[in-house]
């Protein structure tokens, strides 16, 4: 879950240029306003806003996006990092456009996860936790995603793909490689 701060994994750097922050379109600003309006305390919107900033800034919280969040929520930049590093779905480093998250927990494990992982990884030529050299695909092994009855499964972006077979995996990866995969949930198609 949370990233631990160790010498090998130092605190992410704060935005270098104080005052310089990310700029978003009026539509995105309106989306952000809608989230802020739900809570009596602005800070409560931190996670929904992080997902939006992450989506708009190439899939992760870059320093300008972090500066934006601090500014918009009226908190310190370190407050943003403190929260961002706790949650596994908030990325503090770039991830591939096609982020394949394979569930490795018990029900999936006994229902064929190892075969799926092996297939995905050998096809993409990377190991779990890695991104392809062209930056397009990332493979992660993650914990139970609530699809235990339809195991094995992975999540691609926010889309669930269940009852996986190697044929199904190939069909999905083919579409991604041809850039024909259309995300169904949570992302803008152009991202």
């Amino acid at each position, binding site marked *: 879950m949370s990233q631990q701060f160790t010498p090998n994994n130092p605190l992410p750097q704060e935005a270098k240029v104080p005052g310089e922050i990310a700029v978003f379109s009026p539509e995105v600003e309106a989306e952000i306003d809608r989230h802020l309006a739900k809570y009596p305390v*602005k800070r409560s919107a931190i*996670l929904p806003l992080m997902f939006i900033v992450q989506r708009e800034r190439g899939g992760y919280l870059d320093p300008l996006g972090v500066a934006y969040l601090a500014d918009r929520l009226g908190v310190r930049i370190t407050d943003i990092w403190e929260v961002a590093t706790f949650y596994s*779905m908030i990325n503090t480093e770039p991830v591939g456009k096609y982020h394949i998250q394979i569930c490795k927990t*018990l029900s999936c494990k*006994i229902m064929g996860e190892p075969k799926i992982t092996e297939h995905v990884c050998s096809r993409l030529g990377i190991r779990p936790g890695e991104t392809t050299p062209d930056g397009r695909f990332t493979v992660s092994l*993650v914990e139970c995603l609530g699809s*235990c009855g339809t195991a094995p499964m992975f999540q691609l972006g*926010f889309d669930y793909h269940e009852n996986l077979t190697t044929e199904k995996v190939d069909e999905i990866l083919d579409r991604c490689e041809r850039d024909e995969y259309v995300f169904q949930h949570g992302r803008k198609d152009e991202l």
Partner: protein
Amino acid sequence: MFIGAIDCEPLQLRRAGLENSQSLDVYRKNGGYEAIKKVLDGMSPDDVIGEVKKSALRGRGGAGFPTGMKWSFVPKDSPKPKYVVCNADESEPGTFKDRYLMERDPHMLIEGMLIAAYALGARTNYIYTRGEYRYLIEIMDRALAEAREAGLLGEKILGSKFSCDIYTHTGAGAYICGEETALLSSLEGLRGHPRMKPPFPAVSGLYQSPTVVNNVETLTAVPDIIKMGGEAYQKLGTEKSGGTKLWSVSGHVNRPGVFELPMGYDDMEKFIMEDCQGIANGRQLKAVIPGGSSVYIMPAGDVIGKDVRMDYEGLVAAGSMVGSGGFIVMDDTVDVFESTKNLIEFYKHESCGWCTPCREGTDWLVKIFRRIANGEGRPEDAQLILDLCDNIEGKSFCPLGDAAAWPIQSAIKKFPEDFKKHLLPLTQGEAVTV
């Protein structure tokens, strides 16, 4: 995957199979929003809490706390705003019932929350959904918009004096945020660390205000309790736990799925062999984890021919717990050492790092399990593991620590041979391949 009721009229899954079951129209045509109408037409908040008490509904999130009693802990005279927070963080391995409730019948959750909010005097309410369930947040948002449009949310609902709003909120990948106080920290925009209890959320929860946190399945039971009356609902189950319960079945069965059973269903063997259509590929049953990854593992011998009753008391008597109802079935190809290693890796990953016994203990357990898996198991390792568990269980800040220790303790106790075969000193026996 099967979704349906066995041995009872479906309540929670009544509409799950209908076409367009997510829509307000289908919900209303099939009994929807009748309960909130009944409430607003003449029940006081205390009447509502009284019915829920009579129903013997116990929280479906894992702890099984009586819901009516929890609601009655909210101080009525507090000048602070009150909150109802729905716990839709569903991350306990093996559990996926809340997902289908929200996917198939989002309005049932909205109606349940409305009634809870009325009973507790809450104006603003949240559904905290795990971040990975983004598609469910989209479904809930659409249903909430529909309800608002129809005057079922917002100011003066159905022409009454009752005003109420419900909003979705997203988590971002942290199992611990299913623990209610960690959930509230997260909802306040902080790291998801648990908080000291007492004060309990009912007294001081979200923004230090009285807050009731309830699981999805708990809240979706409420409309039926109001409609049929608490007593009738209780009679569907047992005296101490009323109504029906959803079981998420996964693993080596021919028919996995979400099963709605009356509380106290007799018996577990029949459930596995008939309702779930037996063990897949003609293999033998080896073990069951009946209530999500955090409960004690049961060997086949404790299930077959034992008439295990599927309710809180029945499962405790059989050596396990209802937990979240995440029912994981394992056949005789599974090595319980390996399955336990898989689970302790989960708990290590999900330990929030707040307290030392859990953070360090789970880390050491994973190191030891990995060393054993690498063929370097030592005879004293079983005792070493049990000692570590002993230093986590009951000594951690929140129940996640206990939840990490229990599966291991029971696995070593119930499947000693699966551990022993990994613990032979290499000089003494054959090399162990894992």
